[in-house]
């Protein structure tokens, strides 16, 4: 490849044409059955099929042209840039960072705090519902879940495929205790966390001896067990019907967001009735919960238990020979991660006002894990960015109804969110095999703190 770039373009172009044609042929056969043929039911309810040659042609053309451009122009260009960089001797990691880079976290936090007001100012009350709720709250829930799972997977290195179980435990704890006993949100929030942590310990005990693939399978099963219990224990959980009419969170008991109560927030402040105030309130709750998760994670990493988690991820036998009790270390990791899952679950229940086992399927666990892996195991910033891209991307897809013009009126863009996930996965794993932010900040240092280059942090394996 380098030889051909130096000798001239004809070689590269010939290769690009060849590879482009090849990609076209492959994609033709790959998409022939998926895209080229469509089945549907006619008036007699019989299943018949028709062909979609036009759409298939678009797919094949995109693959062929894309490959042609990649091989013919993009790759030589990138190679040349790398070569030039290597020659000039400039390291990729430079010490001098831009202002934005250095203060990224502060800027992001300020933006988040101002976000609801910005959205109210720009798109008004009715428009803000979408931006605060669908984007803001939705993304932050996943940020919190992913940060919670990060403690188990990213720090302690225990691959958990059933994390959604703790989310479910938290949500149902809140839903059940609130509707049966009428406890308030602020009492049930910590309780849900504690109950989820308890389940974390219960799961932790039998799986202590397991590692890697075996642990993944058992946790996967645990997630399914919880879901099946929720479906089948109809006396308590109302099964697939779910629990509705869950109480809203109140402003620490001072103001309520239920319409008709005397201390209604809107009435107390003399505002015009709108559900957006409640959404903004919820936004700040979940933001605070996220900050709590981040704070606890950062603090724990500096404490002996956090260091023990990281050491455990690296070498269990060495840990034991240094006097670390691996049993309690693993259990605390499970319990801490589960606790944050429980918090997020309780919040989810109060936000939706409705929980059903539908919300706690395996796909959710997979999405949360995908966010952790994409963001870079152990990196809070990377995970937050990954959550924004993945969850926000799904929401953006919903907005893309203009695509119907291209693909026909039956096209529903949000059905393609898995495609987005797959694409993001492939892109990140190709270009940043250790996740968006693959560097691990050492917690102990003598003189100066130096980030460890991404090429040494965990590769994309369990």
């Amino acid at each position, binding site marked *: 490849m380098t030889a051909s770039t130096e000798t001239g373009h004809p070689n590269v172009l010939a290769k690009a044409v060849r590879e482009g044609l090849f990609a076209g042929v492959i994609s033709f056969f790959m998409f022939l059955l998926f895209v080229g043929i469509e089945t549907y039911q006619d008036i007699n309810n019989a299943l018949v099929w028709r062909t979609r040659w036009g759409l298939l042609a678009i797919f094949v053309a995109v693959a062929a042209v894309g490959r042609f451009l990649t091989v013919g122009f993009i790759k030589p260009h990138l190679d040349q840039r790398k070569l030039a960089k290597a020659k000039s001797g400039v390291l990729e990691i430079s010490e001098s960072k831009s202002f934005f880079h250095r203060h990224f976290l502060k800027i992001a936090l300020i933006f988040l705090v101002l976000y609801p007001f910005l959205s109210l100012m720009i798109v008004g009350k009715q428009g803000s519902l979408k931006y605060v709720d669908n984007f803001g709250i939705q993304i932050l829930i996943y940020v919190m879940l992913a940060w919670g799972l990060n403690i188990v997977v990213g720090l302690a290195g225990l691959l958990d495929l059933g994390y959604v179980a703790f989310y479910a435990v938290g949500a149902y704890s809140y839903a059940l205790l609130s509707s049966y006993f009428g406890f308030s949100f602020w009492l049930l929030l910590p309780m849900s966390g504690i109950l989820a942590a308890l389940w974390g310990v219960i799961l932790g005990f039998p799986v202590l001896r397991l590692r890697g693939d075996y642990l993944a399978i058992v946790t996967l099963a645990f997630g399914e067990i919880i879901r099946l219990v929720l479906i089948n224990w109809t006396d308590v959980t109302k099964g697939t019907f779910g629990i509705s009419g869950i109480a809203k969170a109140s402003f620490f008991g001072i103001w309520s967001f239920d319409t008709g109560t005397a201390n209604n927030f809107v009435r107390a402040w003399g505002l015009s009735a709108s559900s957006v105030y409640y959404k903004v309130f919820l936004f700040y709750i979940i933001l605070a919960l996220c900050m709590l998760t981040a704070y606890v994670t950062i603090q724990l990493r500096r404490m*002996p238990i956090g*260091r*023990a988690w*990281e*050491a455990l991820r*690296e*070498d269990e*036998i*060495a*840990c*034991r*020979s*240094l*006097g*670390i*009790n*691996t049993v309690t270390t693993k259990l605390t990791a499970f319990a801490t991660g589960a606790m944050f899952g429980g918090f997020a679950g309780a919040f989810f229940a109060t936000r939706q006002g409705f929980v059903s086992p539908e919300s706690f399927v395996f796909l959710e666990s997979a999405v949360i894990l995908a966010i952790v892996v994409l963001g870079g195991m152990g990196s809070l910033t990377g995970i937050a960015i990954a959550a924004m891209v993945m969850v926000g991307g799904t929401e953006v897809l919903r907005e893309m109804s203009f695509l119907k013009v291209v693909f026909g009126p039956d096209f529903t863009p949000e059905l393609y969110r898995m495609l987005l996930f797959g694409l993001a996965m492939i892109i990140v794993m190709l270009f940043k095999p250790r996740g968006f932010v693959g560097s*691990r900040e*050492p*917690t*102990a*240092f*003598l003189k*100066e703190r*130096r980030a*460890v280059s991404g090429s*040494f*942090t*965990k590769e994309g394996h369990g």
Partner: protein
Amino acid sequence: MAAENLLKVQAVETYYGNIRALAGVDVEVNKGEIVSLIGANGAGKSTLMMTICGAPQARAGTIVFDGEDITKLPTHLIARRRIAQSPEGRRIFPRMTVYENLQMGAGLDNLKYFNEDVEKIFTLFPRLKERQSQRGGTLSGGEQQMLSIGRALMARPKLLLLDEPSLGLAPLIVKGIFEAIKKLNQEEGLTVFLVEQNAFAALKLSDRGYVMVNGKVTMSGSGKELLANPEVRAAYLEGGRH
């Protein structure tokens, strides 16, 4: 040197499933001694090391450390009795920095003596000081061995177990590491129990030695005696047939 007993391994048998790896081993280590254990591959040397640490636990026999029976204790509790091990294959934490690795070693005292001890390790192995903010996995083999020993020393051990510190290292580095061990023993009175393939270097360094064959101790004596022993010379020192 008063022959005060620190570690006493008596008639220990260890099994991997149904396979007997140790067939009744008796070994003693006195305070302030360097004792080495030599033997061919598969003789059970490393198994004895691991058995002392409780992973796997001995199925028969007793291991007494500092007057206490530790045979059935879990590994982490044995480590808390101040038996530190630099295990076979070094087993440092590859993605943590050298400094963090050393910190992990000092966890028993909750880092109380950390600053003091880390200086000591850096004087003993200056290379580690140069590399302190580098990740363990990026060190060379010799540096990793130094780190492994350094990490074990951070626990302020009463007994240091070294499993093949010379494995895969250049002779010059091996010499350096053995000199460091000697220095620790002479200056700090550290008791060392050493497993080695490199029989000549190990016996020269040691006060006493044991020879292990097929899960049994077949010979013991002072380092000099064993070095002079024709059988030992034939089997382990001159590359002869056993």
